[in-house]
């Protein structure tokens, strides 16, 4: 019995490839199990986002629990765009005038979703910094101000095109806070209108 030196190395390589593919499947399964286990130990486990409310999509069969008891605001299109903003929307738009009127009720929570460095440069009076980029780190401090599911919450970020406020609003909505708004024009719009800014 003898081996063909020309073919044996390739058969070894083939055996290695088969073994590698089997290992790959094992590594993928192990990663999935570990990821789910790790997620279940988090204070805020990651869950799928709820369906976009009907009033934002205009489609039948979507969750419409957001509509009741909400304050003025225009709807936001859920149509996918080519911008950096994510396609999902779970908040209504609110103008600076509407925000000013709401802010006096004592229960509206104003959240600045920008990074702490931007917040330190100035923010809308009464706003609490809750950077979406560090959601898990800031949530414990902000959660004390989240009082009840229907509490009006207004989020804003740098300008009118930024996505952080929408992402924060979407996340809060998925956590059960159904009365969430996004400030039209963001912080820049607020400043351009000559409104008061607080500096820490």
């Amino acid at each position, binding site marked *: 019995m003898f081996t063909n030196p020309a073919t044996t190395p390739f058969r070894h390589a083939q055996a290695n*490839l088969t073994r590698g593919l089997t290992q*790959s499947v094992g590594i993928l399964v192990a990663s999935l199990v570990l990821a789910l286990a*790790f997620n279940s130990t988090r204070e805020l486990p990651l869950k799928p986002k709820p369906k976009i409310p009907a009033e934002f999509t205009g489609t039948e069969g979507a969750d419409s629990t957001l509509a009741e008891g909400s304050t003025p605001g225009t709807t936001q299109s859920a149509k996918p765009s080519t911008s950096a903003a994510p396609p999902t929307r779970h908040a209504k738009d609110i103008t600076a005038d509407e925000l000013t009127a709401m802010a006096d009720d004592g229960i509206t929570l104003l959240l600045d979703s920008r990074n702490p460095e931007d917040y330190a440069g100035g923010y809308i009076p009464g706003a609490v910094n809750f950077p979406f980029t560090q959601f898990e780190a800031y949530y414990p401090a902000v959660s004390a101000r989240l009082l009840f599911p229907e509490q009006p919450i207004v989020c804003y970020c740098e300008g009118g095109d930024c996505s952080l406020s929408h992402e924060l609003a979407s996340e809060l909505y998925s956590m059960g806070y159904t009365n969430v708004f996004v400030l039209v024009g963001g912080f820049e719009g607020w400043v351009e209108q000559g409104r008061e800014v607080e500096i820490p």
Partner: protein
Amino acid sequence: MKRRSGIMHWLNLALSSPIGLWIQRAFLAAIWFAACKDKLLFPRQFRSFIERYQIPWLEGWPLVLVTLTIPVLELLLGFLLLTGFALQGALILTAGLMLAFLVLIGQAAIRGLDITNCGCFSVKDQPEGLARFFDSMGFHIVFDLFLLGIALFVYWKTFGPTSPRRMLGQRSSTSAPEPYSPQ
């Protein structure tokens, strides 16, 4: 017999040596460790980055599973590449992930999606300075190709038909193939 010389020959020898191959694996491992950190710490932000690629079927639980699994997989691959345990699988998955990232970034670029930060390393919304460059899609197309090349090179040199392990007569732990029997 023609004697091979030149920088490419010596580079190939150096990169194919056991220490050269280990250094390349360590480099890949370092990339995976750097890539998984922010994604593990801030899964919500990472999910929002994946959403920006606007993949129609990737929503709900599939999106959550991908968001949670990718950083853990990256971490695991880093350890496996470093230790050499299940190395064939780790190298194949490294190459596979690079290919998947290339397809993802490429389709986003073709569709004209305006993604400033690809979410490959940092999950900051608006990275500045060098971070902006290193997280740009253009850089990552080139960089992922480079990493894909390293993964394939290391695999070929370690487990391919011309690998030193093969040449030295060291068998892998797989069962030996059937000997060739002429008819």
